[in-house]
């Protein structure tokens, strides 16, 4: 078989690059991470003629090679490193037909790296409607490359594109811009210092360090330092480069691109007028949010119930049909409840990613950002914080990664710090089970269920604490930063079902696999800790028999007594007992204490832990809720989960930073342990105090 051609797909954001990628690779793609950093790496295989194949790498969208974020940095890293396994034989720059001028900036930069570069003009099907005409041969001649008109939406032009990829060796390599014209003197000096090196590449490596402060810098190998110039001078030169490139582009397009402006449709401006209206804009925005939350809670409850029942049945079947022993017990009491705890989140997460993908694809998200910026700025946030705060209701991890396009470091940092307050889906199972225990199933005003209102209140509390914390941080954080805010307002588009579905499936998959591993591992560890113990643990039957000597116990009563004695003296029981003094002022016993400690890794583990703790040795297949309701306070004889301890638990989970993965992501994104540790300390302290005060007042 012939060797694979390495293809890198590049382009500005909003050019339909991902659609082009999906067209080229179909479902033959995989999404991973670049080693050590949280930038998504999308790659796939595309079949060419005569059994040849191309390996397509979809690089993050970028406006230029002057990186200002970790995603953009990844593009430059790859293009500068000839030894990288993924270094492209040929680059395909995707540009949008209505924005050719701006898109060409990136094209000329890549061309100047002397990589064979094809220009693919996407959305070419709109040319007639927009009255755009392009003189392709003249453009090819001016840019010294092949230009292909494509339409990902209509699936046009892809055969030509594939042919050009196959014949990449025929592409001219001449650069567009002579680098030295930017600043003849500077580049002459550079050439003298590093003889024989490519000047443009050198220039990129040097300026890379300017834009890339210590902040985002991870794993960049900068072998060359050219410290004779100040940062300000280099920035000036970068601006000069941009201006020179635009001069070249303007000259090129003057004779090759014709746009009849009179013919431009004003569908966009009409829609903009409504969606960014000072009244209707907000009405629509909140209507959209309501719809999303409805979907997450109402619609996903059906598949969730189904998953819940399926796992209960599987557990029952395992216990009934497999020979008794450690293995069966591990399966039924450790593995299955653990797996169930992950799988049950899939519907909610999938719905959330589905809606976010639709909002991004249609172009509405930018309008929401535009609308909310002024309001959010009052609290030290940016309009762009809207996306992370909404995504935070699914999971703080993708939400914190979504803060990358906030240009202002202080606003970005505050967004990262407050996002974990929003009610993520991992809090939901904790909320649901406790609400069902302590809030009566009543209706308020005839229509609202009291339980539903409580849940709504907790969501509101999450947003309110995030906003309030942002306000405080804005007051007290002294972080020097400049107020930059640039957001592209893309054209409205109908979302392509294929794109939306692929995004949803990929994001959900990576969440489930990522978080799933932790939850799964913890449930097995818990099972081991709860099923074994030192000393007295193994003598439980004798001790119980001695204790109840003379009293007649039924076989079942005897087993229950043995098992609860064993749990108390298992390794986990010992841990729980030792932390009991710390949690009893909040209204919790040692079992809840264990659940809280183990859910430090991930909140949803709380329910799983209680499920594991209560199901170790519990044979009747009651639901976890019933078992919790049956728990009794040993001294008072009242139910363990009463109103006071329940509310205290709800509030504890509303505020506590119970998620290791989030801490890890915050560490990565801020490149410092200070912020995640501060987050952990403040949120946990706040949670403890609020829970303490609540319990003591309500008790």
């Amino acid at each position, binding site marked *: 078989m012939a060797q694979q051609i390495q293809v890198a797909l590049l382009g500005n954001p909003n050019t339909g690059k991902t659609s082009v990628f999906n067209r080229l690779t179909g479902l033959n793609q995989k999404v991973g991470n670049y080693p050590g950093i949280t930038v998504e790496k999308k790659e796939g295989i595309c079949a060419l003629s005569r059994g040849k194949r191309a390996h397509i790498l979809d690089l993050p969208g970028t*406006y*230029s090679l*002057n990186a*200002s974020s970790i995603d953009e940095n990844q593009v430059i890293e790859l293009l500068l490193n000839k030894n990288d396994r993924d270094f492209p034989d040929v680059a395909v720059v995707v540009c949008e037909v*209505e*924005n050719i*001028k*701006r898109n060409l*900036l990136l094209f000329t930069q890549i061309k100047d790296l002397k990589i064979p570069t094809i220009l693919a003009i996407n959305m070419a099907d709109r040319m007639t409607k927009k009255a755009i005409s392009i003189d392709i041969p003249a453009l090819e001649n001016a840019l010294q490359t092949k230009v292909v008109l494509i339409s990902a939406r209509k699936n046009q032009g892809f055969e030509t594109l594939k042919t050009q990829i196959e014949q990449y060796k025929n592409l001219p390599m001449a650069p567009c811009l002579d680098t030295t014209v930017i600043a003849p003197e500077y580049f002459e000096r550079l050439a003298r210092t590093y003889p024989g090196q490519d000047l443009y590449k050198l220039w990129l490596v040097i300026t890379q360090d300017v*834009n890339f402060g210590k902040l985002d810098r991870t794993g960049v190998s900068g072998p060359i330092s050219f410290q004779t110039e100040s940062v*300000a001078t280099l*920035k*000036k030169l*970068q*601006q000069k480069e*941009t*201006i020179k490139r*635009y001069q070249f582009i303007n000259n090129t397009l003057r004779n090759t691109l014709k746009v009849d402006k009179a013919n431009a449709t004003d569908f966009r*401006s009409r829609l*903009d*007028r409504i969606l*960014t209206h*000072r009244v209707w*804009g*907000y009405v629509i925005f909140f209507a959209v949010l309501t719809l999303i939350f409805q979907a997450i809670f109402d619609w996903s409850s059906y598949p969730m119930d189904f998953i819940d029942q399926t796992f209960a049945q599987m557990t029952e079947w395992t216990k009934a049909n497999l020979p008794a022993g450690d293995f069966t017990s591990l399966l039924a009491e450790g593995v299955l409840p653990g797996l169930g705890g992950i799988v049950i989140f899939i519907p909610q997460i999938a719905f959330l990613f589905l809606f976010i993908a639709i909002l991004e694809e249609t172009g509405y998200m*930018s309008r929401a*950002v*535009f*609308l909310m*910026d*002024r*309001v959010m700025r009052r609290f030290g946030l940016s*309009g762009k914080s809207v996306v992370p705060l909404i995504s935070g209701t699914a999971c703080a991890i993708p939400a914190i990664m979504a803060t990358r396009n906030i*240009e202002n470091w202080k606003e970005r940092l505050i967004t990262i710090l407050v996002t974990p307050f929003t009610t993520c889906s991992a809090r939901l199972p904790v909320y649901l089970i406790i609400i069902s225990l302590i809030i009566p199933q009543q209706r308020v005003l005839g229509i609202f269920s009291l339980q539903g209102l409580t849940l709504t209140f907790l969501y509101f509390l999450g947003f309110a604490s995030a906003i309030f914390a942002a306000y405080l941080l804005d007051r007290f954080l002294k972080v020097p930063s400049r*107020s*930059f*805010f*640039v*957001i*592209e*307002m*893309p*054209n409205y588009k109908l979302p392509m079902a294929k794109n939306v579905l692929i995004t949803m499936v990929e994001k959900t998959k990576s969440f489930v696999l990522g978080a799933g591993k932790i939850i799964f591992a913890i449930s097995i560890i818990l099972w081991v800790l709860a099923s074994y113990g030192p000393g007295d643990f193994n003598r439980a039957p004798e001790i119980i028999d001695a204790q109840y000597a003379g009293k007649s116990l039924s076989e079942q009563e005897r087993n229950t007594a043995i098992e609860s004695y064993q749990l108390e003296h298992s390794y986990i029981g010992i841990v729980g007992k030792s932390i009991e003094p710390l949690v009893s002022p909040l209204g919790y016993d040692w079992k809840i204490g264990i659940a809280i400690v183990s859910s430090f890794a991930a909140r949803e583990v709380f329910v799983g832990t209680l499920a594991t703790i209560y199901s170790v040795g519990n044979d009747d297949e009651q639901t976890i809720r019933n078992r919790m309701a049956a728990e009794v306070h040993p001294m008072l004889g009242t139910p363990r989960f009463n109103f006071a301890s329940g509310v205290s638990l709800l509030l504890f989970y509303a505020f506590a930073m119970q998620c290791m993965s989030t801490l890890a992501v915050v560490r990565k994104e801020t490149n410092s342990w200070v912020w995640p540790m501060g987050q952990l300390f403040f949120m946990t302290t706040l949670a403890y105090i609020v829970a303490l005060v609540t319990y003591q007042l309500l008790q």
Partner: protein
Amino acid sequence: MTTVAHMQKGQKGIIRDVDLDLIPLKLLEMGCLPGNEITLIQVAPFNDPIYLDINGSHLAIRKDVAAQIHIDLC
């Protein structure tokens, strides 16, 4: 000569000068360069940010940055 921050909705202008020290490079890359045409499309509620068409690029910026872009109205 005035600045983009002072434009009214629907007005057009030609960029004369941008304060290179106070303008993010990204804005230049998106076409905010002297000689290019600029149109104010929409102003957000509370008068900030503003939504512009610069040389065919549609984007939104805040007023503090807009005040650094000097234009001639046309």
